[in-house]
């Protein structure tokens, strides 16, 4: 789809990519503005990656520093893996937003400011002694463009009969209009979208549209810009696309499992930031074979899921750190009972309540080792917002095939970040076919722990005559499933459970090396840092450095070929948003391998520039 646009007096410059950050007060609708610009860019055929960054869950006072809400989008003509480190364009709707974000703007970057909001009151709330816009150094550092969006919005809506408050809430569309114009987006599409969004309130639809058009034509008519930009469409794989956030994608994945398997997907859980959207989406899809249950707490949430799994459902729970902590005992039961269930952990800043709205990767070792007794389970991690769809399906496939709980790790950045998602055809999805036992498996008796050659036990569900049996948390006889306190049996069962999880390796693809098979530095990442690390590797190779990248989707079991690859590189660098957990894990798993650990724990995705620098240091 070409970027049709209105004829313009200005020349249009082609750019490869741009990173724009919209910042304003929580009340200013920056999330909407960012999402709309993203949508338009995607529809224009660009690749996009976004990073919304909103304040703590509770609304802070209007105009305060704590109340600033931001949305960053990276739009490109080539594959876009990250929302971008530092914005090329900063759109600041008030002083607090300017103060908290200016430092990130690229030197010489475009600084678009809503001057109308720079009132003494707002300046004070932001802790500005004087109006920073009047500070000449600002103009020297950046391409400052001040626009009184408040005033122009008022003007546009004069006589509309809307209240001052309603009018004020329209100004984000002015900013959007201006940006859409600047990046040569067709105006008409936005009109459609506005009508859809405000279908119930036509008067607001009209108002917002008016303001959007005002912003759009302001760019054209006012003399403030001397060129516009266009970003050529990306060569994405052919297909139908939509944008998804990680949480939305995970929910779609589980629902897809229900649709393709024809089996009930049962979700039992308890709301917790940043995982809640998963259940919120799933609850809408009752007609698609999904049953959701909001329990009284996380323990009951996973308990209900394990119960449903015993009853034959494809069971899921989703949570974040504090909730995962509460599910630990239950996970142990699922391990010993060998029942299939998927636990999604959307990691957030910890420890304890920590930083609920910030991202982190610090639950890895807990996911791997955080259960009492020997309780191994498969652990995998999604690598991008859209990949949460595939991660959800794969986790469920493994759980059912191997009769085991499976942990799927995502994080706050993936959960709220978005990117284009190519809608797959049913045939592209792996088959999930639970084989419920229907008959006794040993001389007319049903032996719940009589395993197949892969060490998987059968799944007999209530309602099946003759297969009545009991499962539970006490050690079980390796065949009959009766309670057993025999030491030898316990040892056999512990080792068998461990071996079964090791056997999952048959479903773990070898990792692919991005870059030369051999080189100076190997970057190893897992989970949500994929984009930053992949981009860093590409940049470094573009600089001519022999740098390769391996990204781990599977944390347990680790891919067969990983050890050999690690040993092939003189230097291995493991960048993480934690205190070095994967680096420690790799050391423990591959004697002799001693990676350099690079860690950042500031609640934000890793910066590409930082990684590039780090590699320069160790090269």
């Amino acid at each position, binding site marked *: *789809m070409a970027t049709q646009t209105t004829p313009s007096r200005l020349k249009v410059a082609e750019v490869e990519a741009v990173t724009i950050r919209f910042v304003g007060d929580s009340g200013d609708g920056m999330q909407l503005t960012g999402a709309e610009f993203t949508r338009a860019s995607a*529809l224009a*055929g660009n690749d996009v990656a976004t990073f919304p960054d909103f304040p703590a869950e509770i609304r802070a006072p209007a105009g305060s520093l704590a109340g600033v809400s931001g949305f960053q989008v990276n739009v490109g003509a080539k594959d876009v893996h990250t929302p971008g480190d530092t914005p090329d364009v900063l759109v600041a709707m008030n002083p607090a937003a300017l103060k908290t974000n200016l430092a990130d703007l690229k030197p010489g970057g475009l600084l678009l400011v809503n001057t109308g909001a720079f009132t003494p009151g707002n300046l004070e709330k932001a802790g500005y002694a004087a109006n920073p816009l009047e500070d000449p150094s600002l103009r020297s550092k950046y391409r400052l463009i001040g626009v009184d969006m408040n005033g122009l919005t008022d003007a546009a809506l004069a006589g509309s009969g809307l209240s001052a408050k309603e009018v004020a809430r329209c100004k984000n569309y002015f900013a959007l209009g201006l940006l859409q114009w600047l990046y040569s987006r067709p105006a008409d599409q936005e009109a459609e*979208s506005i009508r859809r969004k405000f279908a119930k309130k036509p008067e607001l639809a009209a108002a917002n549209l008016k303001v959007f058009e005002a912003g759009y034509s302001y760019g054209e008519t006012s003399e403030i810009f001397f060129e516009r930009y266009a970003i050529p469409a990306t060569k*994405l*794989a052919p*297909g*139908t*696309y*939509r*944008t998804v956030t990680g949480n939305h994608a995970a929910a*779609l994945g589980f*629902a*897809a499992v229900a*649709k*393709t398997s024809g089996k*009930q997907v*049962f979700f*039992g859980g308890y709301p917790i930031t940043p995982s809640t959207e998963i259940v919120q989406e799933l609850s809408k899809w*009752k*007609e*698609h074979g999904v*049953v959701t*249950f909001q*329990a*009284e*707490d996380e*323990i*009951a*949430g996973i*308990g*209900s899921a*394990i*119960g*449903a*799994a*015993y*009853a*034959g*459902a494809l*069971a899921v729970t989703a949570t974040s750190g504090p909730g995962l902590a509460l599910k630990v005992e*239950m996970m142990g039961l699922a391990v010993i009972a060998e029942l299939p269930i998927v636990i999604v952990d959307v990691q957030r800043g910890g420890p304890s309540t920590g930083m609920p709205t910030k991202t982190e990767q610090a639950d890895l070792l807990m996911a791997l080792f955080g259960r009492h007794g020997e309780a191994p389970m498969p652990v995998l991690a999604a690598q991008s917002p859209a990949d949460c769809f595939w991660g959800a399906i794969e986790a469920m496939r493994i759980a059912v095939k191997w009769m085991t709980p499976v942990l799927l790790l995502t994080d706050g950045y993936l959960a709220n970040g978005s990117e284009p998602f190519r*809608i797959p*055809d*049913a045939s592209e999805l792996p088959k999930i076919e639970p084989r*419920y036992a*229907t008959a006794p498996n040993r001389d007319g008796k049903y032996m719940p722990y009589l395993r197949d050659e892969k060490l998987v036990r059968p799944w007999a*569900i*209530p*309602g*099946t*005559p003759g*297969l*009545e*049996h*009991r*499962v*539970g*948390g*006490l050690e079980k006889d390796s065949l009959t499933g009766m309670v057993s306190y025999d030491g030898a049996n316990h040892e056999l069962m512990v080792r068998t459970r461990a071996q079964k999880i090791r056997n999952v390796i048959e479903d773990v693809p070898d990792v692919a090396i991005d870059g030369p098979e051999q080189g100076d530095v190997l970057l190893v990442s897992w989970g949500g840092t994929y984009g930053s690390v992949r981009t860093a590797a590409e940049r470094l190779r573009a600089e001519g450095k022999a740098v390769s990248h391996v990204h781990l989707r599977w944390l347990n079991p680790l891919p067969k070929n990983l050890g050999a690859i690690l040993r092939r590189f003189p230097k291995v660098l493991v960048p993480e948003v934690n205190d070095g957990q994967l680096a420690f894990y790799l050391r423990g798993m591959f004697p002799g391998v001693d990676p350099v650990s690079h860690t950042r724990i500031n609640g934000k995705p890793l910066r590409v520039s930082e990684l590039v620098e780090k590699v320069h240091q160790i090269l």
Partner: protein
Amino acid sequence: MSTTQDAPAPAYTKKDFESGVDPRWCPGCGDYSIINQVQRTLPAAGVPRENIVFVSGIGCSSRFPYYMRNYGMHTIHGRAPSFATGIKLSRPELQVWVVTGDGDALAIGGNHFIHACRRNVDLKILMFNNRIYGLTKGQVSPTSEFGKKTKTTPHGSPDYPFNPPALALGAGATFVARSIDVEGPHLGGVLKAAQDHEGTAFVEVFQNCPVFNDGAYEFLADKASKADTQLRMEHGKPLLFGKDGKKGIRFNPRTVTLEVVTVGEGGITEADILVHDVQREDPTLAFMLANMGATPGFPTPIGVFRDVRLPTGDEITWNLIDQAKAAAKKPASLTEFLSQGETWTVK
């Protein structure tokens, strides 16, 4: 998943519900007589054995599922109701029983218990109340008497005990009953009523632990005095008790309290005696009777306190699902489903 449709409902006998594993309770444990009654009660309903699931937590009482020839889960201390809720919401055609102890249900499991009462999902919850932690060898439980000396309260328990039926009623339970391990037939009747009830049914069974809390219910079980200490509540019948059935419970409207009176004395006739009504929507009287048990000088009520039919949590959940299905235009294909919202196509 409904492999259950075609299942026949054979005429069962008690034996059909014995798993063949001999119970591992101590000699003389009250749990034996309880499982006995459960196994006698189940056949009547004619529910196919494979459609019944017993779920328990951890405790002596919670070993129960191993001895039943049904599907069963012996789960985690205190959490049985959560598993049971998942089973019943996922497969409403199954009959789901929860077997638990006073510590399992009311100490660590108290939250799941009150939420089960609130949601009214069709679970039958049997709580064996021996007023002690049996499995861990004798610590104080939330139903242990105030001041009771146990291994963790050598100077006497500082805690006031729960009154389980009162707690269940406060949480909104639609069915609340009580019986005694040694009163076989009575227990059987209560179990039957619980099984027939649709919605969460809570049955407190007074159970003797001869090893760690022997004689806790002597005052009720003692042949000589039990006629005076037990008040057997029966729906539609006046609340009479005592050897000659002349003692009764009268409701005093002035003081708004219950009192013990004797028919024939001081002009009291049977008409003055409160008539028991398990179907009162307002739980007040049931609550009053539940608390009466705790008051000295009064008999201890056994039988059904409350039995009210409300839509069950599983019925409501599945009605919503069926409505959603009915409202949905033809089953959407996967691609249609995934394509909701705004999409664009790359050639």
